[in-house]
C-alpha cells in the first residue's frame, strides 16, 4: 500500500479493492504515526475527511465517480478553506478560519477529492527551507543522520508526499517554492503559466509572480492535478480566459525530434560536478528518446535574483498591509490608540523574514527610490522575458538544474538572507517571465534526490508533462522513496 500514485489509487477504488473511508483512514494513520517527526501538517481534519470519504464511497457505488472521487490529499496552508484553519505559516493568522473556499479548493471539492488537512510552509511563503514557519520547521523525510531541510516554501506539501502521508498535495510558487522542494524531496512539481490557476483565495505574497500548482510523485499525477487546478476564474482578474486542455491526453506522445535548449548561463562553474554529471546523464537519456539538445543563451539571467528581490518584496509590502489587526488576523492586547494597534498587531504577528521583506519593499517603493528600484526592476524583468522569447524561436523547451544542490542542513546558510536567496537562482527567472516551469527527479547525490527543471513556453504545460512522463517511463528516480517510509 506504500507510495501509490493517484492513478493507482483511483483504479483501486474503482475495482473495489478498498473504500475511500479505508483509504483515508490508512493515510490518516500514517500522518498520526509519522508526522510528529516530520511536522509537515499544521492542521489535520480527520472527522471532516472521513465524512467526505463516506459521501465519496456512495458516489462510487452509484457509478458517478470521477478519477478523483475519494482520493485523499492535502492543501498547502496558503489556500483558504471554508471553516478550516488557514494560517499561511504565520502567527498573524494563527486563529484565521476563512469564511470562503479558494477556487483551487472548490475545484478539488467538485471532483470529489478528500482533503485530509493543511500543510506547513514558510511564513507567507517567504523562504526556501521551511525554517520561517511559525509552526516549526519541516524535516525532509530523506534525512538520515543529519536533519535536512525539505526546501520551501511548499516544504510541508513536499515532505508530506515524499513521506507518503498523502499521495499528492497542492503547492504555490513565487520564486521556486514548488520546484525547489520538489527537487529536494524527489518529487514532480509544476508551476503553471501565470494566470493558468486561479489565485482567488490563495493568500497573496507577490501577486504578479504567485501561482498555484501540483506537487506529486509522477508527471501523470501532476497532469491529473493540473486538470483540476487550472480553470478560468472571473473572481481572479489575472486569470487567463483560455480553454484548459486535458493535460493527460498527450503524455504518451513521442518526444522524438523535439529540440531542448541548455542555457549556458545555468551550466556555470557554481554547479557541483555531481550535479553536472546527474544532469548530463538525464540529457543522454532524453537523447535516447529522440530529443535534440542545443546550447542557448539567456544573457540577463544573472539579473533575475536582484530583480526578484525588488519586485517580490515591493508587492509583499503592499499585499501584507492588509493585516491591520482590525478585520481579521492577530490583534495586540489593549491597544492605546489606532497607531499602537497597527504597530503592535503587525510587529507581534509577523516573523523576522516577513518583516525583512516588508522593509525592503517599503524602502524600494518609498519617495525618491521608486524609479531607481521598482521601475528599474520591472524594466529588467522585460529584458529577462525577452531573452526567453528569443530562445523559444529555436527550441521547444529549456532544461536546467532546479536548485544548486541537494537538500542541506538547517542553519547551513548561516543567518545571511542573501545566501538563502541564491537557492532560487535557477527558478526565479521563470516567475519573472510568467512562464511555466517544472521539476522532476533526475538522480541521486549522496543518497539524496535532485531534480532537473523544464521551462516551457507560455501555456506549454502539456509539452512539459509529456517530456517528463516520457523520461519517467525509462527512469525510476520518481519511484524511489525515503528508506524509513
Amino acid at each position, binding site marked *: 500500500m506504500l507510495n501509490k500514485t493517484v492513478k493507482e489509487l483511483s483504479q483501486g477504488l474503482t475495482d473495489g479493492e478498498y473504500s475511500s473511508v479505508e483509504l483515508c483512514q490508512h493515510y490518516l494513520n500514517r500522518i498520526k504515526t509519522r508526522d510528529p517527526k516530520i511536522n509537515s501538517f499544521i492542521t489535520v481534519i480527520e472527522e471532516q475527511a472521513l465524512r467526505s470519504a463516506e459521501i465519496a464511497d456512495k458516489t462510487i457505488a452509484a457509478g458517478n465517480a470521477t478519477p478523483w472521487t475519494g482520493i485523499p490529499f492535502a492543501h498547502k496552508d496558503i489556500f483558504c478553506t471554508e471553516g478550516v484553519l488557514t494560517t499561511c505559516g504565520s502567527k498573524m493568522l494563527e486563529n484565521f*478560519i476563512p469564511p470562503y473556499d479558494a477556487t483551487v479548493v472548490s475545484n478539488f471539492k467538485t471532483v470529489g477529492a478528500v482533503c485530509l488537512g493543511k500543510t506547513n510552509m514558510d511564513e507567507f511563503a517567504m523562504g526556501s527551507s521551511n525554517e520561517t514557519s511559525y509552526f516549526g520547521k519541516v524535516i525532509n523525510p530523506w534525512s538520515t543522520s543529519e536533519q535536512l531541510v525539505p526546501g520551501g516554501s511548499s516544504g510541508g506539501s513536499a515532505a508530506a508526499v515524499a513521506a507518503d502521508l498523502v499521495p499528492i498535495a497542492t503547492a504555490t510558487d513565487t520564486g521556486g517554492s514548488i520546484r525547489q522542494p520538489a527537487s529536494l524531496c524527489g518529487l514532480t512539481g509544476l508551476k503553471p503559466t*501565470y494566470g493558468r490557476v486561479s489565485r482567488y483565495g490563495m493568500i497573496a505574497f507577490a501577486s504578479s509572480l504567485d501561482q498555484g500548482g501540483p506537487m506529486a510523485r509522477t508527471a501523470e499525477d501532476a497532469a491529473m492535478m493540473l486538470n483540476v487546478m487550472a480553470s478560468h476564474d472571473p473572481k481572479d482578474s489575472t486569470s487567463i480566459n483560455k480553454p484548459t486542455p486535458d493535460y493527460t491526453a498527450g503524455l504518451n506522445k513521442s518526444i522524438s525530434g523535439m529540440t531542448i535548449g541548455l542555457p549556458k548561463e545555468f551550466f556555470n562553474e557554481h554547479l557541483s560536478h555531481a550535479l553536472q554529471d546527474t544532469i548530463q546523464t538525464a540529457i543522454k537519456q532524453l537523447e535516447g528518446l529522440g530529443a535534440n539538445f542545443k546550447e542557448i543563451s539567456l544573457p540577463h539571467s544573472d539579473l533575475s535574483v*536582484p530583480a526578484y*528581490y525588488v519586485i517580490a518584496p515591493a508587492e509583499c509590502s503592499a499585499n501584507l498591509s492588509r493585516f491591520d489587526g482590525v478585520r481579521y488576523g492577530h490583534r495586540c492586547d489593549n491597544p492605546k490608540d489606532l497607531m*499602537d494597534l497597527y504597530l503592535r498587531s503587525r510587529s507581534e504577528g509577523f516573523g523576522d523574514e516577513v518583516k525583512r521583506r516588508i522593509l525592503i519593499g517599503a524602502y524600494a517603493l518609498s519617495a525618491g527610490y521608486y524609479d531607481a*528600484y521598482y521601475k528599474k526592476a520591472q*524594466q529588467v*524583468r522585460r529584458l529577462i522575458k525577452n531573452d526567453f522569447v528569443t530562445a523559444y524561436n529555436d527550441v521547444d523547451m529549456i532544461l536546467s538544474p532546479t536548485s544548486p544542490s541537494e537538500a542541506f542542513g538547517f542553519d547551513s546558510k548561516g543567518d545571511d538572507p542573501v545566501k538563502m*536567496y541564491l537557492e532560487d537562482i535557477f527558478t526565479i527567472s521563470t516567475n519573472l517571465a510568467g512562464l511555466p516551469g517544472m521539476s522532476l527527479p533526475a538522480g541521486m547525490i549522496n543518497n539524496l534526490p535532485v531534480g532537473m527543471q523544464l521551462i516551457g513556453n507560455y501555456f506549454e504545460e502539456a509539452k512539459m508533462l509529456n517530456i517528463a512522463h516520457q523520461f519517467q517511463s525509462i527512469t525510476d528516480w520518481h519511484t524511489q522513496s525515503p528508506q524509513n517510509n
Partner: protein
Amino acid sequence: MPVGPEDIHKIAHLARLTIEDDKILKISEDISNILSLVEQLQNTDTNNIEPMAHPMDATQTLREDKVTQFDNRDKLQAVAPNTKDGLFLVPRVIE
C-alpha cells in the same frame, strides 16, 4: 547603498512595524546586503525598455456593471477581533 538604523526606523514606521533596538543593527546589515545584491540592476542599460507589469501585457479585465447582492457580513465579521452592531471596533480615533 548602506542603510543605517535611522533609515530602518523610518521605513519601519511607514510599514507600520516596530523593530526592537537589539535587532536594529542586524536588520540594517541584512537590508544593506540585500540592497547591494540589488545594486547590480543599476549597471544594466534599460533605456527605452517599457517596465513589465504583466507577463502577457494583459490589462485589467472588466466585468459587466451589474448590481450583485452581498450578504455575507456576519460570516466575514465572525473572524474579526472586535465588532459591534456590524461595525469593526478600533480604539477611539476622534476625541
